[in-house]
């Protein structure tokens, strides 16, 4: 359900940016969402539809780029793709994990239409 708060936050930020750019339509919103960001993708997509309803983003396409995780071992600094949030380092086998990618929750860009 936190996906709804996240969706509302996305819609709010995008509307503000679109107004600042005097855009009359936002055709696309590009989001980077990490696979380990704690977001349920289906729920986010659903929530975006709810949050965008009756706003200028009602017809906007929300494109979600799923960011694959990359972990760094805190002990030997080996970089690897973890298969779980709590994997051991495949190199030195120590537990503990520092995610350097995969926890993104970011609005990357908007594609807007403007008249002048």
């Amino acid at each position, binding site marked *: 359900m936190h*996906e*709804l708060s996240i969706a*509302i936050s996305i819609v709010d930020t995008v509307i503000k940016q679109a107004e600042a750019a005097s855009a009359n339509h936002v*055709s696309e919103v590009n989001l980077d969402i990490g696979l380990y960001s*704690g977001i349920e993708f289906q729920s986010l997509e659903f929530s975006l539809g709810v949050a965008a309803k009756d706003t200028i983003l009602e017809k906007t396409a929300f494109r979600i780029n799923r960011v694959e995780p990359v972990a760094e071992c805190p002990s030997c600094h080996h970089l690897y793709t973890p298969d779980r949030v709590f994997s051991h380092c495949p190199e030195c086998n120590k537990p503990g994990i520092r995610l350097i990618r995969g926890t993104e*929750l970011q609005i*990357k860009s908007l594609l807007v*239409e403007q008249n002048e």
Partner: protein
Amino acid sequence: MCETCGCGQGSIPVKITRPGEPEANEHHHEPHSHGHHHDHDHSHDHDHPHDHDHSHDHDHSHDHDHSRQRLIRVEEDILSKNNLLASRNSGYFEAKGVVALNLMSSPGSGKTTLLELTIKALEGKRPVAVIEGDQQTLNDAERIDQAGAPVVQVNTGNGCHLDAEMIRLAVDKLELQERSVLFIENVGNLVCPSLFELGEKHRVVIISVTEGEDKPLKYPTMFEHADTCIINKTDLLPYVDFDTELVRKYALSVNPHLRIMELSAKTGDGMEPWIQWILDLKP
């Protein structure tokens, strides 16, 4: 929608997560694209200088047909507003010498009972205050009030977690004493609250022996983001199949730095290390 806590449709209270602001970003990004497109306009004008008045009209209709597309770079973290507010809360707590603890668990793990006992144990030793988070009712706040601590209840309506703005509003109603410990009892939910910083110094996750040992593996984000884990209801250990060593192993595999304490908030067994830890907390 949220299969974990069963909370329903679009809800009004969640809207208070809407703060205002990040002007900085807008300023930062506008010049790029604006500049670029203005250049295009100029070249159009150059093509038509002979036509005088007419050319203006042409320009207009041209623009309308082709409303131009433009990419705006935002690169803004979606949680940045909450995190900004959380930092503000945290600065306020620091200035007042207050330590805030964010208590999170599934519903029914015994958070409120643990708080009642903790409040009694801290009486006369360190001032405490409590923020209670629940979807509905004042039940928990009434229990805490009975236990003798100043308390504010946040009812999130359909919301499944507390956020930094709710904490700010709740703190406004609490007269926090210097050097007090502020317990924030989050909405019972092992998923959503882990993403929202509130300005707390420590995150405490509570599980009880009537739950499965594999909770840390099933909900790793919560255990990964916590620094302290309480295993509650140890008085029931003789009656349930719960392997304390196994849950410790699972919890530490998710987060090797987790501080784990076992206790029974009902009988008071094992409370001393928890109370001592709280008494030793520095803002």
